[in-house]
């Protein structure tokens, strides 16, 4: 126990912290610029000077650690004078252009000058000038206002791990610059902007549009882009969204955001938002009244049900829609007599999770993000977390900086500078490598952990390849595999981060489970959309009801049906790609798509489109006129994320509240669904989102009794207040070729998951488009030079499915013979080039690794 005195107040501390922290914890404010709770110490600004007994000089409270008996004064005439002089020094070269500075009102410099002075300047010399940097599309750099606290640099290199900016030059000519003078390596997370205490780094999005004190409302909500589910504050003025900002310490993201979350919000105000319901008449979509549109949808669905049976109807739920929306949606589809309900979670997330839970127990992916940074080894398989789930990626980088071993299997360029080792087998040979790793780890550990008997029995008969055989099969070095195995086996706290490509492949997913079991590792399942977990938990699955209850269990099915007043059909429905296949063969005649864009987001685009075109009736409910909406018979405009209440469930399986910040005319997804439901005779008496949550809490045993108040009160972690399903053990058969590597050589076509985009939604965000305006073909320098291609050349990429002409981008982050194309830009998606094969268990479409040819144009 340490006892100190600050301002004559006795303070007791458990452990030595800095004077500034000790003071803060006791409600004593010490002014500071360069100190920031999440950044490394700096001690440069000298604003936090305090007097300490027995110390001749003033001390910086942010760097001085308390010792027993220390006596500190944080305010006195000497201290005020010192602080005033620091402020005077800062102001001599500061432009004092507060009237036109967006930071005014929330600027620390302004605030402290108000508090300590000086009120008049003595500086008669010319100021050092530094023209504002306007060549960046998103970030305005004003180095005249910079006070050189280096918070931005410490954020960028110390936390974000991008190292995109640095101080250049020296002394009073120092300035904060991107390394290349433009935008090199910048990930546009904007986290530098959060920590800048003055108006030196600012967002261009809201430049000159309002003053900080004119914000009329600050609403805490969750990011609409990916499954990390970052907590953010929406700042609203007169019913318009001004900007979103993170809040230090809040949410799993602890005050960090990525570019999508921070700069992607403008889509809500896009002029392209759908406003009116549309009905296709004479082959053209035409505005209609809500009544007409809802009646049409209800009556056409009823007709098809009556003529062809409920099985002819299918629903695709929305991974950006809330739990409430999705719950209502699956109820509607089931109310129509169909279990054909699925979503984009099928593409790896749901299947992977099913396997992990089947082998390891329910809730295994319910792992708090903070665990990653505390791990001493992190294994990444099947995706690049820094691109898919950027803030999760930052946690891995932090673990690396703390000394953890970070090992990647497969492409993960975002971790290029933050890994201890990377293995790059053929994209279809993850299984062999992992088999070899498991053998080597088992050899090292000598025995299985004991505990999960059925699993251990299965492991012993898995015919795992030895590390040597695995290495030979996938042309890697056995030593590398052995070394990595040692590192993993030697770690005491391991995290495995799994991407959807690994989750969708049952063999890989099973091997991940085995690895996790023998290493006692936490599993983190990357989630590309904000509510994939919610889709699973709300029963938007052809074989599961809300709360993860199997449809096959009659008692549960009956009970659920009874509470809805319907008979839920006993037969499992079709999965996502099966629905498309059935539409193509005529088995499915009507499809209701909510907040999804299957015509673009599913592989084998041409055939998918073809299949959708063959439907008798297609309803699309969306906020934009997507590729799918264009083909619809009825289009229903919905409200966006910031315009509605509800909940999302993130990759950690944490339920979080979405809050309405803006009111516009229109209906939430759940409301539209309920209107349709009522018209077909379903009981959907929902006046507000909370009413649906009440029903979920009644129907889903996992969410039993859960309320918004619980969620907001922090009672939001799996399994909430409910019960996970028992009888969970299942162990699928490994494929015969699980441990082989494809013989084929040459370039593989890979799906780029761009950091700056998310699905097709981000197309409508001008800011994201400005930093990533077009689809490109990303090649490693070696591949590009082998093909005689330069940056900016155009190349034709062809597969048996078709071809695309794309601009070449040489990417030093890529290793090996891979060609990356994204699936985000209209008419330029990778999925137009790929067929797929369905995994027999997860039913995920597996697309990667196809052979391609590339020609210069």
């Amino acid at each position, binding site marked *: 126990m340490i006892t100190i005195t600050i301002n004559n107040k006795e303070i007791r501390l458990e452990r030595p912290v800095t004077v500034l922290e000790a003071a803060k914890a006791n409600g004593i404010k010490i002014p500071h610029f360069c100190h920031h709770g999440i950044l490394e110490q700096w*001690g*440069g600004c*000298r604003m936090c000077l305090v007097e300490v007994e027995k110390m001749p000089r*003033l001390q910086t409270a942010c760097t001085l650690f308390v010792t027993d008996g220390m006596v500190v004064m944080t305010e006195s005439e000497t201290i005020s004078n010192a602080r005033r002089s*620091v402020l005077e020094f800062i102001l001599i070269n500061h432009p004092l252009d507060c009237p036109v500075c967006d930071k005014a009102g929330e600027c620390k410099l302004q605030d402290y000058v108000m508090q300590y002075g000086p009120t008049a300047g003595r500086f008669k010399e010319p100021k050092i000038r530094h023209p504002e940097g306007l060549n960046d599309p998103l970030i305005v750099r004003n180095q005249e206002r910079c*006070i*050189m606290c280096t918070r931005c640099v410490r954020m960028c290199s110390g936390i974000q791990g991008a190292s995109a900016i*640095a101080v250049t030059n020296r*002394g009073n000519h120092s300035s904060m610059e991107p390394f290349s003078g433009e935008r090199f390596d910048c990930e546009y997370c904007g986290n530098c902007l959060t920590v800048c205490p003055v108006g030196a780094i600012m967002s261009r999005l809201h430049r000159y549009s309002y003053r900080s004190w004119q914000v009329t409302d600050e609403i805490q909500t969750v990011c609409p882009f990916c499954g990390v589910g970052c907590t953010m504050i929406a700042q609203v003025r007169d019913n318009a969204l001004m900007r979103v900002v993170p809040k230090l310490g809040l949410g799993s993201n602890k005050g960090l955001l990525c570019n999508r979350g921070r700069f992607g919000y403008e889509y809500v105000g896009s002029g392209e938002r759908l406003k009116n319901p549309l009905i296709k008449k004479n082959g053209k979509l035409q505005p209609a009244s809500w009544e007409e549109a809802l009646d049409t949808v209800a009556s056409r669905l009823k007709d098809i049900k009556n003529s062809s049976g409920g099985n002819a109807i299918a629903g695709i739920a929305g991974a950006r829609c809330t739990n409430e929306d999705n719950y209502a949606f699956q109820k509607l589809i089931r109310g129509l007599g169909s279990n054909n309900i699925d979503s984009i979670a099928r593409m790896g997330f749901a299947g992977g999770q099913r396997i992990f839970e089947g082998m390891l127990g329910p809730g295994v992916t319910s792992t708090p993000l903070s665990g990653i940074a505390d791990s001493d080894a992190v294994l990444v398989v099947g995706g690049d977390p820094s691109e898919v789930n950027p803030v999760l990626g930052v946690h891995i980088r932090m673990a690396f900086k703390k000394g953890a071993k970070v090992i990647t299997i497969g492409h993960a360029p975002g971790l290029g500078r933050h890994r201890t080792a990377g293995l790059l087998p053929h994209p279809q040979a993850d299984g062999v490598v992992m088999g070899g790793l498991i053998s080597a780890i088992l050899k090292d550990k000598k025995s299985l952990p004991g505990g999960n008997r059925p699993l251990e029995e299965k492991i012993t008969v898995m015919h795992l390849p030895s590390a040597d055989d695995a290495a030979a099969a996938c042309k890697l070095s056995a030593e590398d595999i052995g070394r990595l195995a040692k590192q993993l086996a030697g770690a005491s706290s391991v995290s495995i981060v799994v991407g959807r490509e690994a989750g969708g492949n049952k063999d890989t997913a099973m091997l991940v489970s085995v690895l996790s079991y023998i290493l006692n590792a936490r599993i983190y399942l990357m989630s590309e959309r904000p509510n994939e977990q919610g889709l699973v938990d709300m029963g938007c699955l052809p074989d599961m009801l809300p709360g993860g209850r199997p449809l096959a269990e009659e008692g549960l099915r009956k009970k659920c049906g009874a509470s809805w007043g319907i008979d839920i059909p006993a037969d499992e429905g079709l999965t996502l790609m099966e629905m498309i296949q059935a539409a193509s063969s005529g088995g499915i005649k009507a499809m209701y798509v909510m907040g999804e864009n299957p015509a673009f987001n599913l592989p084998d685009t041409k055939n998918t489109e073809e299949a959708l075109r063959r439907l008798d009736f297609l309803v699309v409910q969306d906020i934009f006129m997507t590729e799918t909406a264009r083909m619809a018979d009825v289009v229903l405009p919905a409200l966006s994320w910031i315009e509605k209440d509800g909940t999302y469930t993130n990759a950690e399986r944490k339920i979080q509240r979405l809050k309405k910040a803006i009111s516009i005319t229109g209906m939430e997804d759940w409301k539209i669904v309920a209107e349709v439901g009522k018209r077909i005779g379903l009981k959907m008496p929902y006046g507000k989102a909370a009413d649906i949550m009440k029903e979920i809490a009644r129907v889903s045993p996992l969410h039993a009794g859960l309320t918004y108040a619980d969620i907001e009160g922090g009672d939001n972690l799996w399994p909430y207040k409910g019960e996970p399903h028992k009888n969970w053990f299942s162990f699928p058969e490994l494929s015969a070729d699980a441990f082989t590597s494809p013989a084929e050589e040459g370039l593989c076509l890979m799906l780029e998951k761009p950091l700056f985009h998310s699905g097709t939604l981000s197309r409508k965000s001008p800011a994201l488009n400005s930093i990533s305006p077009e689809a490109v073909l990303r090649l490693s320098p070696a591949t590009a030079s082998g093909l005689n291609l330069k940056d900016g050349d155009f190349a034709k990429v062809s597969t048996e499915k078709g071809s695309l002409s794309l601009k070449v981008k040489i990417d030093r982050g890529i290793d090996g013979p891979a060609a990356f194309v994204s699936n985000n830009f209209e008419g330029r998606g990778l999925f137009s080039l790929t067929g797929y094969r369905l995994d027999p268990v997860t039913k995920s479409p597996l697309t990667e690794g196809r052979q391609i040819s590339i020609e210069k144009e």
Partner: protein
Amino acid sequence: MNYLLKNIENPNSFDVREYEKAGGYRSLKKAVEMEPAAIIAEVKKSGLRGRGGAGFPTGMKWTFANADPKFPKYLICNADEGEPGTFKDRPILEKNPHLLIEGMVISGHALRAEYGYIYLRGEYPDARDILNRAIKQAYEKGYLGDNVMGKGLKFHLTVHLGAGAYICGEETALIESLEGKRGQPRIKPPFPVNVGAFSMPTIVNNVETFSNIPCIMEIGPEAYSKIGSPDCPGPKLYCISGHVEKPGVYELPMGTTLREIIYTHCGGIKGGKSLKAVIPGGISTPVLPPSNIDCPMDFVSMPKHGSMLGSGAVMVFDETVCLVKVCLRALKFFEHESCGKCTPCREGTGWLRSILSRIEDGKGEKEDIDTLLDVSGNIVGKTFCPLGDGAGSVVINFIKHFRPEFEEHIEKKGCKYKK
């Protein structure tokens, strides 16, 4: 009797054979037979204080580093010699490099460090070549390498060239720079003896400090402690520049008075002119008027006479010199060399320089002197490292001793010394 500049008249003094001929590497031979702790004890007993400027007791520093259980430990020789007026390390580096190498190998043995770096001032390209040649010779002779003197001791030495920043002479900025980072001082504690280069215990000593080690080994700590001032004994290199008859580097016992240095050794003021001011220990030490030159030049006595020993770089100014201009020149240096980490130094040095510039140009105003004093006062004691303190105290001391000269510039709107 010269220890540090022994053999310096020999045109081939930098060659290992000449060095050996003059008795070189004999101390090392003695040291490798000793227990590391015994060497540290001898250094402690000798009373040697660091010659880099701060005068920190070397034995104490070594004891701290030795007490840290972490390995590997690193040894760094601070050869950044960037303080204006300072050129005392240069003759060792260029003429007697093996003395430094010998001192470092002994120190490495004492501290159980296997790697040493010489962080060399970027503007000393000749010294770089000479050092590298000497290191090569030392490797060949078995004074460096994996089996020093055939005793199974390991010590390797690398020269690292600075890039011209004065702040990189400050030990923690030096370490940052050595690690490939921007040269700016680190927060202390932790001190380099515990968390230094590559986060490992690191001993940073000046060239001259290391060069004193063979001497202590040779004559023994008792004899050594009898050289010069009792509180901080040993031979000392003083480098004298400016208006004296014979400027240069002199090896004299620590504590020789300024008067003796200027008038006895350097032959007095050039051309028989009169002395106007002396900066005794490099540009950041307070200027002294002629009335104060009877002070013994050592770490203990100088503060009592209103200045500091610093690096022992004596700059002598005669009656023809404009001291406002000297002060301005000093501040130009500090402004240019301020690393920019802390507010008072980054902004204050430029401000002081611009006011001084105006005064020197005849555009000074009456309140400027008070502003200078006030701004300097706002810097001193509030900066992150001593560079800023130095800048502020330079101005304060020039005004303290020569205020009328500043006032005259303002009243007469110009400088009467301008030619």
